[in-house]
């Protein structure tokens, strides 16, 4: 089965084509176009306009790169949510148009679950992981339990990427700020005390953000602040992930989301996994960030487990929670 997936939850519009090869995901193509605001954060309408402008070309490019014909596509999948309404609607509209014109079934999928499934689908031996999903908007620790992907811990205020971006904006870095903060942090030497806020398996970043901004106002070196922010937030993320692993008694950990491309975060989680004899997995960078291939792959899993959707019911859901999805395809 060949499935085309359209991702459009936030700043990225992506089209991926995947093939189901005896239960594993073969990515045939995965094209992404990222909206980068000139100033400030993501404006939902501007991002949606960006997506509308590029989606048609992306569809053609992605299908041609996959070396398939539109007629060979068996299923159209799209990101149903969670995300920004205008962006979701743009991606869903493209999916509906494609589904109707090609006369192929359509299926809307949960973006957060897709981040987990692409790891299971593309990485050998990644079977039942605890996912640390870290992106701009989302910070969740997710694992399979009692028929669903349950959220064992999550941010109580802002996502980790959002925390880094907000700090980056205050000090004049461009969006997305994570990679630049990572570079600055690698030159930091002095640890500046920052709030370390964990409640059970949940986590909070807004106090740390304020404290970091205060250090900047007091003229502490930017390198040291970035270093301290990374060390503190990533240690807390690693800790909640470990707590979820202990709680669920799972011995696999998977990273997902844009912040997973940060070397330091990977190192910390990998060290934690090693110390507790667990296996560590991280998909390639293009499958960690928001992308169409993961949407396509989750579409395949859901379709194969018998889930069907009609075009007239292919609504988007801005507040589509991870634990709302009945997971009938997982043993």
């Amino acid at each position, binding site marked *: 089965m060949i499935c085309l997936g359209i991702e459009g939850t936030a700043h990225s519009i992506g089209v991926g084509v995947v093939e189901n090869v005896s239960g594993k995901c073969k990515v045939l193509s995965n094209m992404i176009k990222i909206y980068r605001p000139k100033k400030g954060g993501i404006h939902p309408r501007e991002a949606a306009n960006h997506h509308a402008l590029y989606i048609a070309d992306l569809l053609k490019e992605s299908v041609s790169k996959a070396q398939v014909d539109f007629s060979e596509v068996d299923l159209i999948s799209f990101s149903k*949510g*969670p995300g920004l309404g205008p962006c979701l609607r743009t991606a869903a509209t493209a999916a509906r148009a494609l589904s109707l014109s090609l006369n192929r079934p359509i299926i809307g999928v949960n973006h957060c679950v897709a981040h987990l499934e692409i790891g299971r689908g593309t990485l050998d031996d990644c079977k039942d992981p605890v996912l640390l999903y870290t992106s701009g*908007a*989302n910070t969740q620790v997710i694992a399979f*339990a*009692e028929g669903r992907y*349950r*959220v*064992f811990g*999550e*941010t*109580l*205020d802002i*996502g980790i990427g959002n925390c880094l971006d907000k700090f980056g904006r205050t000090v004049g870095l461009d969006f997305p700020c994570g990679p630049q903060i990572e570079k600055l942090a690698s030159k930091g030497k002095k*640890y500046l*005390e920052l709030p*370390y806020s*964990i*409640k*059970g*398996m*949940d986590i909070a970043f807004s106090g740390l953000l304020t404290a970091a901004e205060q250090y900047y106002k007091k003229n502490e070196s930017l390198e040291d602040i970035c270093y301290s922010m990374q*060390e*503190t937030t990533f*240690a807390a993320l*690693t*800790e909640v992930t*470990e*707590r979820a*692993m*202990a*709680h669920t008694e799972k011995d696999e950990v998977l990273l997902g989301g844009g912040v997973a491309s940060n070397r330091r975060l990977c*190192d*910390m*989680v990998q*060290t*934690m996994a090693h*110390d*507790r004899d667990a296996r560590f997995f991280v998909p390639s960078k293009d499958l960690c960030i928001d992308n169409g291939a993961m949407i396509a792959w989750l579409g395949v899993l859901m379709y194969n487990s018998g889930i069907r959707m009609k075009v007239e019911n292919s609504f988007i859901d*801005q*507040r*589509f*929670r991870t634990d709302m999805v009945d997971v009938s395809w997982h043993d």
Partner: protein
Amino acid sequence: MTKKNIIYRGAEAEICIAKYKGFKAIQKKRIPKSYRIKHIDDRLISLRTKEEAKLITEARQSGVAVPIIYDVDLKNGIITMEYLDGKRIKDVLNDLSEEERDSICTKIGESIARFHNNDIIHGDITTSNMILSNEQVHFIDFGLGEKNNEIEAKGVDLHVLMEAIESTHSQYSSCFDYVLEEYKKVLKDDANLVIKKIQEIVKRGRYR
């Protein structure tokens, strides 16, 4: 005091059986984590060990069943405490009769209200952190706790339990209602303010 065998390895600490002046005892040792820098590691271990010993003692004074503290070693992050013979609520709750389950949840609600009355926040109220021993629900692991009189803190404390029940005992989600029912009766302040806070925290979570 001799260290014997490790009976449980949690996310942040090892629990082993030891002897303290002839008594069978439990030692909780916080393990240094190699993934985080020493500065953060030392700070967290020493702070959490001290805070936990203090909170367990205060919880006992509030009339909550907790292990008796025998000794505290801040430098090595070790608390030596009473050995409790029993089972984790997490492991027994799903197998109990409805009546027993309700009665356990009522006891849980009563205990939480008692320590909240003294502004003790547990910080990690899950069913793994409660031990059923001598028909009493003992609370363990105050490692993420704090003293805090704010409604917000009490709401977050209960919200952790709500999530734990939803994820680990999803077929018995009414358990949390029994917890709240007794909590309301025992809490000195207006418990409805705390319950309203829980609802607010749920909505504050992403995509609710």
